[in-house]
């Protein structure tokens, strides 16, 4: 049971990164369906940079620097995808859905190429990521559940909390939400809609990208076994599940993680049955959608202009 929960948390944090980034993006009014591709790019950029770094320093790698190199590269790589998305949708006014889907395909392609260059095994790098507090083992179940994790797990929660705070408690957050709700209003209030959308989308994509890195380095212990785009879609589903709130996403992500891996911990489930179990997060998301729609509370609805481009002089 304990192992199941620990696993659920570790996988959940992949979703948490993905959906925190997507929430930030969606709050600005951008429906970025490129998140699966962005997470792939984040993972592969982080791995590729790590591969170059470890190759150049030989056996004397600094753990802190190793983590930093991977995290920063993953963030930048993914943020560049966000920049591409913003450029296409804000500056060139492309359709957001089409652009997002194109980015997903592109991202998967890019990551396949980079992994072909760097190999699929990052076991050495993964050691840095899975290093946990030395006294965690002495604290029994508490230590294992809360303190045994690698650095990315805590980073994910910290990022989600910071995002939640920024969105609800600061001027920047208020402005950002207004851009996603009603860009014409934000514009009339003197807020630079394009800049907010660019920045939110790039930072959001960067955060999502860290989810990809977390999956490879932490959850899979450095073995690039399969492409991770499925987790991107789940992250987007999680955004709906948590009704656009990063603080709820912390718990939501663990629920998603648990649902996704539940089949492996139940004895006697057939292969087909396992796949059925993996459907659960999507089913839950649909149920949440049904409930939020039925109650039609304004508070729990997506940002009003989600997916819509804004042009000031359009009549």
């Amino acid at each position, binding site marked *: 049971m304990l192992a199941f929960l620990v696993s659920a948390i570790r996988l959940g944090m992949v979703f948490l990164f993905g959906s925190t980034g997507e929430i930030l993006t969606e709050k600005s009014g951008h429906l970025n369906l490129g998140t699966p591709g962005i997470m792939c790019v984040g993972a592969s950029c982080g791995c590729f940079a790590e591969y170059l770094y470890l190759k150049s320093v030989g056996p004397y790698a600094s753990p802190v620097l190793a983590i930093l190199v991977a995290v920063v590269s993953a963030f930048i790589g993914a943020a560049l995808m966000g920049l591409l998305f913003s450029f296409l949708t804000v500056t060139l006014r492309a359709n957001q859905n089409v652009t997002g889907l194109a980015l997903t395909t592109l991202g998967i392609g890019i990551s396949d190429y980079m992994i072909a260059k760097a190999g699929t095994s990052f076991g050495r790098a993964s050691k840095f990521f899975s290093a946990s507090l030395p006294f965690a083992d002495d604290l029994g179940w508490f230590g294992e559940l809360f303190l045994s994790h690698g650095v990315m797990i805590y980073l994910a929660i910290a990022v989600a909390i910071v995002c939640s705070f920024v969105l609800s408690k600061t001027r920047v957050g208020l402005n950002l939400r207004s851009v996603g*709700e009603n860009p014409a209003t*934000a514009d009339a*209030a003197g807020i630079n809609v394009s800049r907010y959308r660019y920045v939110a989308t790039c930072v959001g994509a960067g955060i999502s990208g860290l989810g990809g890195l977390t999956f490879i380095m932490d959850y899979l212990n450095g073995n690039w076994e399969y492409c991770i785009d499925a987790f991107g879609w789940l992250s987007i589903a999680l955004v709906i599940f948590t009704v656009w709130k990063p603080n709820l996403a912390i718990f939501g992500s663990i629920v998603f993680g648990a649902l996704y891996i539940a089949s492996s911990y139940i004895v006697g489930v057939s292969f087909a049955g396992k796949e059925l179990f993996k459907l659960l997060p999507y089913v839950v998301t649909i149920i949440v959608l049904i409930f939020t729609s039925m109650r039609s509370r304004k508070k729990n609805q997506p940002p*009003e202009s989600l997916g819509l481009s804004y042009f000031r002089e359009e009549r």
Partner: protein
Amino acid sequence: MANAAIELKNITKTFGSVVANRDVSFTVNRGEILSILGENGSGKTTLMNMISGIYFPDSGQIFIDGKEVVIRSPKDAFDHKIGMIHQHFKLVDVFSATENIILGLKGKDKFNIKESAKKVSEISHKYGFDIDPNKMIHEMSVSEKQTVEIIKVLYRGADILILDEPTAVLTPQETQKLFAILRRMRDDGKSIIIITHKLHEVLSLSDRVSVLRKGEYVGTVNTAETNEGELTEMMVGKKISLNIHRSEPKGCEDRLLIENINCVSREGTKLLNSVSFTAKSGEILGIAGIAGSGQRELLEAIAGLQHIDSGKIIYNDPKTGEEENLRDKTPLQIRELGVRLSFVPEDRLGMGLVGNMGITDNMMLRSYRKGKTVFLERKGPHDLAEKIISELEVVTPGTETPVRRLSGGNVQKVLVGREIAAAPTVLMAAYPVRGLDINSSYTIYNLLNEQKERGVAVIFVGEDLDVLLELCDRILVIGSGCVTGLVDARTTTKEEIGLLMTKGKGEEA
């Protein structure tokens, strides 16, 4: 001029080949209310959008306190203490009043909603507003939303306030309250520019009036030295008789009997409460009421678009003499029964027409089922489109131009033209002249009169009481979903209707 707050010189703005403003110049002084008067499409809103930074002029200069300024964005406008209250409120629905008010502000002080809410209350007290700073926008009435808009610009310390048709959505009482507040602001030394096409408001509120016609500046007059006739002439360029033609109703039969219909919204509030009336052929039945009193729901219920919880809608078929109950029939079933209801919805582009399609295609929306083959027959609708364009003087480059590119008046003509072409026996029109200039309005009135003379039962939902009084034969007044009165338009007075309009509110019905 010594105390000119803002001065415009030779402002020109074009959208593609359309000239919205040409060589417009005028000044606004400190402590004065200036009305900008003009027909629809005369460029009033475009001009104000240039002062508030939404659009940028192609040429011309703007001076504030005698100094030339460049206003490139709404932020620049704030910096020059200019605040605009738009016709369509620019508010975020899921934010509270205070959050909307402080939106976009870059204060050096700490971000503190409570402090801001306190400041909002102070401003409310100073000018006599009535607002709860923590109320969410989506829970507010139109008048409250407007109040938030006004406080928003005051909060930013605006000295020059621009109001774009602020009274269009208000009741007469709310309008009076607003005017009192505006006068208080003027006495406080603020400059107020108000855009309107209601002449009596211009005369009662403003100190001076500037008139625009087709994007050009006609002139400015002191309100005290002018009258309605002169202003109208400046506005339209020629004298228009204010008399709307009205013929005596002939051969009236009961066409539509509405009996005790009730309608409850999803939130459980009563939208229509035991509404009963009769619409007769050969007459125009006016429906008066404050916006949102249930007019829309009533028309939609008749047209089959709104579910009704109880009651009957009986239609007397003039051909067979049979009675049909329209309740809970879909719009298509209503048509198939031979019951012809032509419906001009309030929201022209939302429910009536498809904005991205041309006039021909929009005509086909009503007639495509008539085609005999699987392929579309375009000839009939195309001819109809041509006919509407020539008869109603629709200004458009062609039948295939997307209707969203047309101005409001022309869109309305297309919509009304199409509905009339269906040769209805009952024609319902909701605010068919909303946003139209005087000439287009008269075209619509004439069309409705023509239908009346043909024996059509016309139901006209209007907001201008003067028009209702002159155009209709009988006027049904509704307030908060109840019928509060049915009066003879030839003998009643404005005051009587105004009283009936406000009656439903606050009373237990």
